[in-house]
Each structure stands twice: as C-alpha cells, then as structure tokens.
C-alpha cells in the first residue's frame, strides 16, 4: 500500500475518534507535566473534547457508507447512531464526575478522566469496526480501561476486590470470545466481516457444527459485556466496588458497546450464513438467545427484590434491562435495530440520572444503603421528584422514555414471525415484579420520616446532569417520534 492509497481514504470521517484520542493524550500529558493550578480545569477539557466529538459526529448525519483501510474501519448509519449514544452517555458521566463535592474519593483525578476517554474510544472503535481484529482491539481497550477505573480507589479494599473479580471474569470472557472468533476465522479464512459474510452465505457443508460452536462460544463470551446470563455474576460486586460514576459508565457505555458488537458480529456474519438449506444460521439459533434472555430477565429482577445496597439494586436491575434488550435480537423484525437503539438511549438517560441521585446522597450521607432515601421528600422535594421520574422510567410507567422503549420491544416481540409470546409474557410479568423494588424506594422517599432533621441541597454543578437526564427521560417519553424520525 503506497502513500497515495493511504491519503485517498476519507480520514475526515474519523474526526470524532481523533478528537477523543487527541484530548485523551493531551489530558495525560497535562496531568503529568502541568501545573497544579491547571489541573482544576482538566475535567472541562474532557467535557469540551467530547462535545466537539459530538458536533463532528452530527456533521456526518446522512453521510453515505465508507470504509477505511480495507474495511478495518467502516462508517455506516449503524455506527453513527450507536456512537451518538456512547458519546452522549460519556458526556453525562463526565458532568457527573465534575459535580463531585467530596474530594477524598479518587485523588488521582486526571487518570480517571483519560481512562474514561480511552474506554470511550474503545467503544467507538467497536461501533465502527469492520474486522474481527479491530473489533477485538476496540473491545479490549474498553475492557482494560474499565478494569483500571474500577480499581482506581486503591486504598479501599472493596475497590480492589471488585476490580480483581472484574478482571478475572472479563479475561475468561475474552478468551471465550476469541476462541469463537478463531473458529469463525478458520471456517472462512478471513477476519473481515464482509468477506466472512460472503464466505458463509455459500453452503457451509461439514463446517456447520463448527459454525454453531463458534456462535455459541462467542455469544457466551460477549454476554459478559452486556452482563447477561451466564456472565452476569460480576455485575453487583463490581458496581458496589467502583466509584458511582464508574458504575454508571459500566452500566451504560460498556453495556451499549456490548450490544453494538453483538449486533455487528451476529447480524453481520450469521445473519447471512445459510443453514440446512433454507434458514440463516442466526434464525436457527434464536432459541438459544431466547433462553438466555428469559433467564436474564428472571434472575435480574427477582434477585433485585432483596437488595438493600442501592448500587447492587441498580446492578441487578441493569441485568434485567439487558434481558429486555435481548428480545429484539430474538424477534428479528425490521424495527429490531430501532428498538435496541431507542431502548439503549432511554436507558442511558434514566440510569445515569438514577446513579446521579445516588451519587449526591452518597456523598452527603456516606452510605449506599436504601435508607439514604428515607424521608427524602421532606429533606429535598426537588430531588425526590427527580428520582421518582427516573424510577418511573426504569419501571416503565407511561409518559417516560422507559415506557416507550419497553412498549416497542413488546410489540416487536408479539408482531414477530414466529411471535415470541413467552418472551413478551415474561417481560410483562418481570416488569410488574420490578415495580416492587422501584416503588419500595418511592415509599422510603415519601412515606417514611427522615432519621435526621435537615435539608439536602443540590449544588449548581450537580443540577446540570440531573436536568439533562430529566429532559432526556421526559422528552423521549412524550415526544419519542423526534428520536425515531432522527433514526430513519
């Protein structure tokens, strides 16, 4: 490849990634060599970088598909829409980091920021990866940065323990994913998704069992990222051990990246592979995913019932939500991708919002127990009402983004061919079960009396992510068509 071909690629399409990369490197250099007086403004540099990346990305709206370096990096509408979720969620989490009032939690402030950006870059490369190698490297960039972020509070034993558990689980999951990828590579002799899809669209012949083994092993490995059965057990421990913004990051950005890579690989490769003459290989394997979705919804929501620690509760609820998002993968209608996207967007706003409220209360009361919500309505009516909005959205009450997301998935599952009545029914039942633990928090907030007299104030910086999340949750709930029209 000579210099002419290298220059002929449309490198401008990678502007969002380059922005994040440059800002990340700049932050690490400034953190190392800069004066202490500068360091206070480093978080704003990170926010600015992500903001600029969002602007660059929005300029690419409606741009045609292109590929750089022989399909290693692809830009298509899929990459565009999912990168937008990653960037918006990271922006909200950075605002959450800035709002911190208690300083002793993580002293090494700069590291925190550029690890967040490195993880975001990994997620964006996953969204644009068109090659098994670049997908894998992007995913590992995300994972390795997350391991360090969880363990950053190194003087806290819970943080180290959470990070160690996360790393061991994550490495085993990586080994599974790679083992599956190696079989897919062996069947087709290529790592480019386009070539793999072309090779697989012919008759697989005696390769069919290998393809099925590759499918299952790869899916099990990637289930780690989206924290579904069988790799879900790390979630509560890691969320509890990590600092709250990092828990929010794992819950939203890391999970979205997991769904992105699953859609990219499984629809891209196995959606085209013919199996047994007629069906695609993906269509024959949906029962496998359906079982995982069923178990995930079941376990996540039932175990959440007996949680007292708020971060553990949100961890189990996030497992349940991951189960809901698996349903569009099973139902395979033309609107499945749209449903996944909308649910992930709604999920980003409501989950980050809920984590933000917990973060505010946690810093004031030095506790993560559910009792931090006791009598919150008397201490701070505004905060209680805001939390109610997020809880209503997580529970799926009409008028919120969570309701529209759940409704679309439900309709998609029933309208699918063949209709997934069992999954749709499980989803409805589990939504009702989830009311119990979400409403329990509301009971704490409105009915119980506060243990200590006093008021809880929201600092000005803390209100910024809260207002954005409320706007997103209500806005997507009342005017979902804005987002859905944007998607087309």
């Amino acid at each position, binding site marked *: 490849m000579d210099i002419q071909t290298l220059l002929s690629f449309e490198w401008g399409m990678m502007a969002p990634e380059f922005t994040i990369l440059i800002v990340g490197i700049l932050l690490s250099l400034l953190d190392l060599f800069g004066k202490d007086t500068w360091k206070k403004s480093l978080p704003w540099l990170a926010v600015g970088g992500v903001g600029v990346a969002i602007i660059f990305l929005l300029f690419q709206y409606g741009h045609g598909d292109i590929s750089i370096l022989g399909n290693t990096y692809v830009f298509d509408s899929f990459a565009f829409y999912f990168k937008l979720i990653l960037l918006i969620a990271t922006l909200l989490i950075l605002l959450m980091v800035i709002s911190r009032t208690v300083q002793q939690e993580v002293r090494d402030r700069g590291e925190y920021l550029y690890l967040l950006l490195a993880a975001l870059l990994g997620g964006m490369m996953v969204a644009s990866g068109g090659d*098994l*190698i670049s997908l*894998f*490297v992007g995913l*590992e960039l995300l994972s*390795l940065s997350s*391991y*360090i972020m969880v*363990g950053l509070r*190194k003087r806290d*034993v*819970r943080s*180290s*323990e*959470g*990070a*160690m*558990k996360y*790393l*061991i689980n994550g*490495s*085993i999951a*990586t*080994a599974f994913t*790679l*083992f599956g*990828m*190696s*079989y897919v*590579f*062996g*069947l*087709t*002799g*290529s*790592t480019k998704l386009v070539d793999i899809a072309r*090779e697989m669209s012919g008759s697989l012949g005696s390769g069919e069992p290998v393809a099925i083994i590759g499918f299952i092993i790869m899916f099990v490995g990637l289930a780690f990222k989206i924290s579904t059965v069988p790799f879900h057990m790390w979630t*509560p*421990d890691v969320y*509890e*051990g990590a600092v709250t913004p990092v828990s929010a990051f794992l819950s939203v950005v890391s999970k979205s990246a997991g769904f992105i890579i699953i859609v990219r690989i499984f629809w891209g490769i196995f959606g085209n592979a013919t199996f047994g003459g007629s069906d695609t290989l993906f269509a024959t394997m949906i029962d496998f995913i359906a079982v995982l979705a069923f178990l995930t919804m079941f376990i996540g929501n039932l*175990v959440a019932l*007996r*949680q007292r620690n708020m971060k*553990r509760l949100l961890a189990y609820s996030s497992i349940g939500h991951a189960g809901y998002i698996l349903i569009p993968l099973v139902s395979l209608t033309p609107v499945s991708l749209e449903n996944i996207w909308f649910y992930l967007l709604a999920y980003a706003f409501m989950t980050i919002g809920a984590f933000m409220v917990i973060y505010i209360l946690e810093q004031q009361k030095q506790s993560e127990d559910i009792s931090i919500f006791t009598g919150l309505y008397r201490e701070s009516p505004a905060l209680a009402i805001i939390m109610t909005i997020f809880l209503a959205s997580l529970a799926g009450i009409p008028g919120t983004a969570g309701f529209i997301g759940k409704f679309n998935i439900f309709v998609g599952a029933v309208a699918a061919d063949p209709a997934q009545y069992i999954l749709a029914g499980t989803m409805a039942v589990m939504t009702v079960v989830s009311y119990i633990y979400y409403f329990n928090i509301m009971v704490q907030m409105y009915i119980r009396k506060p243990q200590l007299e006093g008021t809880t104030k929201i600092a000005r910086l803390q209100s910024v992510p809260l207002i954005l999340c409320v706007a997103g949750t209500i806005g997507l709930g009342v005017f979902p068509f804005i987002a859905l029209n944007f998607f087309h």
Partner: protein
Amino acid sequence: MTTIPLQAYLILALILFCIGLFGALTKRNTIIVLICIELMLNAVNLNLVAFSQLGNNPGITGQVFSLFTITIAAAEVAVGMAILIAWYRHKNGVNVDEMDGLKD
C-alpha cells in the same frame, strides 16, 4: 513439512482451553488463575496459527490476529498484576477465597 493434520492442532487447542478454564475456575491462588487464563488465550493463538496455515484460504491474517492477541493478553496480565498488588496490600495474600467482602 505439514504431515500433521489440522484436526490434531484443533484438538490440542481445545484440550488446552479446557485445562485453562478448569484451572481458572478451581484454583485458589490468583496468580495461578491468571496463568490459566493465559493458557486459554494461547489455545486461541494455536487455533489461529493452525487455521492460517492449514485452513480454508490459508494466508497471513491468522498470524497477524494472533500477534494482536498476544499483545493484548500481555497488557491484560500487566493490569491484572497491578490490581493484584493493590489487593495484596490489603490482605497480605493472593487467595481467591478471601475475595468475599462484596456479596449479597
């Protein structure tokens, strides 16, 4: 040169992967667990290299992929050891059984 059939490599890799998985799930020493994870990743490398030489459409891609895998596995172990040292300072040991501070 290549008189050994592809299947032999694949079976060896599968056995290595299973040994690694078994060790990672049962061993008590965290360092052994990390070594077992390395074993699983090396099984993948064996698969990739065997496929790139003897599989369909032989080429250099598989070897490149295995180079990436080796590099990232090294990074993963480096992070793992760093976290393990942080953990060691708290507990003066590397026993997996003692990681029971976080539970329901």
